[in-house]
């Protein structure tokens, strides 16, 4: 197997789960998240040589994923923000376990956030260090801390609000 393929496979195994979370948090749809995941890794493959000397591979991949999500503009049919609601509505509550229900509720709340907030919060939930999130999103660390504090509050409020319904 070519060296590039081996490197690609290693990178995919190490990062795809978190990148999928980011894409799913952004779109709220399995198929769309897989499309974005695939598109991200297509760009990773195309730019693999460029990045050999980068210190933080995950930061580099996250940036690609964030930019790929942001340009997810096939907007006539797939408005990312509105997509999650019908998906959740279709889920038969009695068929899912409490845990799955909680996860679905959490994704529903994430879908109510602004695009940038959705991206940032999925990285926070995946426990990425703040300096890395700042680096990926291009926001200063100080500014980011304030933003994260507000997003956390907003998400928690939304979650409690929907949970009561």
């Amino acid at each position, binding site marked *: 197997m070519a060296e590039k393929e081996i490197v*690609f496979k290693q990178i995919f195994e190490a990062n795809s789960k978190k990148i999928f979370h980011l894409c799913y948090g952004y779109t709220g749809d399995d198929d769309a998240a897989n499309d974005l995941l695939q598109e991200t890794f297509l760009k990773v493959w195309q730019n693999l040589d460029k990045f050999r000397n980068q210190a933080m591979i995950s930061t580099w991949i996250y*940036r690609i994923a964030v*930019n790929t999500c942001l340009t997810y*503009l096939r*907007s006539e049919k797939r408005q990312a923000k509105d997509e999650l609601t019908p998906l959740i509505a279709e889920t038969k509550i009695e068929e899912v376990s409490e845990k799955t229900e909680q*996860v679905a509720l959490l994704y529903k709340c994430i879908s109510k956030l602004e695009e*940038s907030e959705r991206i940032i919060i999925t990285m926070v*939930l995946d426990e990425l260090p703040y300096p890395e999130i700042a680096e990926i*999103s291009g926001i200063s660390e100080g500014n980011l801390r304030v933003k994260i504090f507000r997003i956390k509050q907003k998400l928690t409020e939304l979650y409690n609000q929907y949970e009561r319904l």
Partner: protein
Amino acid sequence: MKDFDHLMSVWQEQPKKDQLSVDDALKQVKKGMSGLSRKLFWNITGMAISLAGIFVVMVFFVFNSWVTYLGIFIILSTMVLYVIMMIRDYRIINKQDITINPADYLQDLKEYQKNRAKVYGGLYYLYVCLISGGLLLYFYEVLQSASTMFKILAYTLTTAWLLFCTFYLKGRFVKSEQDKLNLMIDRLIRLQNQFD
């Protein structure tokens, strides 16, 4: 009342989704890469065949008037201009750096979309004018020995086709293209504000 730590635990314990496997990803990546190259290959091949066809007409058919050659030359130049634009676009799209920070990336995209809208709006008229001019000059000699009826038919059909492209096809194409671009630009502006 649940706190953020609870959300964190919900997130971390979420069941694994049906995610693309590494082998499928690799297969798709390779397919995607060859798809892109194939599309570009067919675009360029199509244009090259047309150019070669016109070139053959120019070299193997003997015309008496320089006006005819001028007509063919204008048509050829217009097609070359189109190929250059196609390659330029391809290069611009490839030049976009997806690894820069999102705000800069969105700014780049916005500029690109605006340029594309501007260039394609004006460029179409230049394209039609050049092709029409080229065809007129070409027909001048080619149709000289044809009957008046045939001449009228040839000119009418060509004019009708160009008018149809300009006022019907172009209108529809530009409108849908502009709508998409406006939607994209609006969304890019909104996204960019979120990163400020």
